[in-house]
């Protein structure tokens, strides 16, 4: 019981501190400190509840056990990370996003195709991955290629749709200006429409980061070599090594957040001019 009360007490204290911090001026350190404090609170509450309520370790291990496991299993975690994230997710992400942007540019020239492809595309994007993943594993084999294929299938349409929306973001006056210069299609594309589309494209790219990692992991549930984050998670659940499962989940969350953060940083660099990046 004291564990539970201690955890709740910590929560209250941390929240009060955060409320106080929020009143301070916005600085970089604060921007990191506050979520860190919040995350620490989550971990403390978790630890306290698991210990206080005597939750069996085969159901939910406490963060301390997970931390210990991470420390002792770094080589395995690293190998899994390379297999799933670097080989599967990243390559699929690059291919899928690239194909999405290029297809959008191609489709953009034909309103006919746009009207036809978008609804059909939305329909195809609605096919749940749990269904498509086994099929793609069957088609592309067990190694990372099939994981990349799943990622491509997942990220392609969000990027396509966002890019298309972005390509129509340049307003009529800006386009008319290009017309008065008698600019060629390529000039208008590179000097006006792509820059104007960037905020939208990045929207798609950011959504795609979380999809990519999830896609690569989920695909491993349906067949894989004997390494990879998804493989490890599903195998270790069966072995009741829940600390290892959560260690992998922690790596996934960390990698996913870092990936998201990296893309968001690129976004800030490229679309510094957009009101949403200037504000606050």
């Amino acid at each position, binding site marked *: 019981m004291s564990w539970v009360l201690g955890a709740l007490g910590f929560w209250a204290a941390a929240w009060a501190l955060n409320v106080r911090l929020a009143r301070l001026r916005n600085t970089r350190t604060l921007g990191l400190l506050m979520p860190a404090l919040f995350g620490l609170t989550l971990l403390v509450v978790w630890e306290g509840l698991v210990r206080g309520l005597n939750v*069996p*370790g*085969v*159901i939910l291990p406490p963060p301390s056990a997970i931390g210990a496991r991470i420390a002792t299993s770094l080589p395995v975690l690293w190998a899994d990370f390379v297999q799933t994230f670097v080989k599967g997710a990243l390559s699929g992400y690059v291919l899928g996003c690239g194909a999405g942007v290029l297809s959008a540019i191609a489709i953009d020239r034909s309103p006919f195709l746009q009207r036809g492809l978008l609804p059909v595309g939305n329909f195809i994007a609605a096919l749940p991955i749990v269904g498509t993943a*086994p099929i793609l*594993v*069957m088609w592309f*084999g*067990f190694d990372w290629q099939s994981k990349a294929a799943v990622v491509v299938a997942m990220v392609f349409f969000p990027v396509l749709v966002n890019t298309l929306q972005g390509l129509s973001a340049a307003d009529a006056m800006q386009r008319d200006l290009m017309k008065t210069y008698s600019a060629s299609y390529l000039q208008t594309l590179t000097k006006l429409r792509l820059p104007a589309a960037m905020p939208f494209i990045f929207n798609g790219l950011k959504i795609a980061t979380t999809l990519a990692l999830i896609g690569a992991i989920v695909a*491993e*549930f*349906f*067949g*894989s*070599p*004997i390494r990879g984050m998804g*493989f490890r998670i*599903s*195998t270790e*659940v*069966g*072995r*009741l*090594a829940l600390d290892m499962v959560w260690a992998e989940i922690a790596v996934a969350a960390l990698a996913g957040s870092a990936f998201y953060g990296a893309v968001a940083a690129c976004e800030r660099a490229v679309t510094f001019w957009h009101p949403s990046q200037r504000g606050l």
Partner: protein
Amino acid sequence: ADEVTLQLKWVTQAQFAGYYVALDKGFYDEEDLDVTIKPGGPDIAPSQVIAGGGADVMIDWMPSALAAREKGLPIVNIAQPYKSSGMMLTCLKETGVESPEDFPGRTLGVWFFGNEYPFLSWMAHLGIPTDGSEGGVTVLKQGFNVDPLLQKQADCISTMTYNEYWQVIDAGIAPEELITFKYEDQGVATLEDGLYVLEEKLDDPAEVDKLVRFVRASMKGWKWAEANPEEAAMIVLDHDETGAQTEKHQIRMMGEVAKLTAGSNGALDPEDYRRTVDTLLAGGSDPVITREPEGAWTHVVTDAALH
């Protein structure tokens, strides 16, 4: 009536015919039991369910049950309706595999999720590394079906005599084109589909009494199923809520399952247990269990149930 929840290891199919028969034919009612059968599936670890209090009794393979016990989950085998193992490795003849000596360099499909232990023990027996090193085999995590063999992504895959093997046959490959290695024949068979409960249950006489009645009724169901395979298969089909099973496949499965349950009256044969534990302990550098298990099985329930 007393309530009992049974967690299966896999989806509803003739592999668990005895329990469905007992339910359907009223054997549980006769024992004043109200039994709920929870189907399993690829994502369900029965030992996790039982640890979370989601079931009273579970069906599991002994290797993973013992591994879980070593992890600190105190589960105990109370009955063993399956006498023999149905596991085997099935290869396409055209790949040229003729005996275990041919394995090195090959790609083998293996079930994980706690089902990899028998395979790993076998390979350890043979001295074949599975970690991708020189002179070893390439291991694939096999999905839920036999596609890797049909698509020739693996030279051999894991199959059960009563299920996946027949899926390969149904896919149009003739038995002559296949070569199979039964774990029983290789001397590395481990016990499958035993009934397990948490240790604490055995300290409570009322609970033990409930389990005794449960095992008695279940074994009655099994014997009925062995005697009436076709009807048993139809009972299983009636309980399949996915609507995905076919009559032909279930009847055939029942026939094969009957061969595996045939030698058991429900009580665990200590010799089978000994062989299983020895196999698991002898796992080379990375054995499935590291210590001789203590108190991992009991005859308390079966003794009361069968006499």
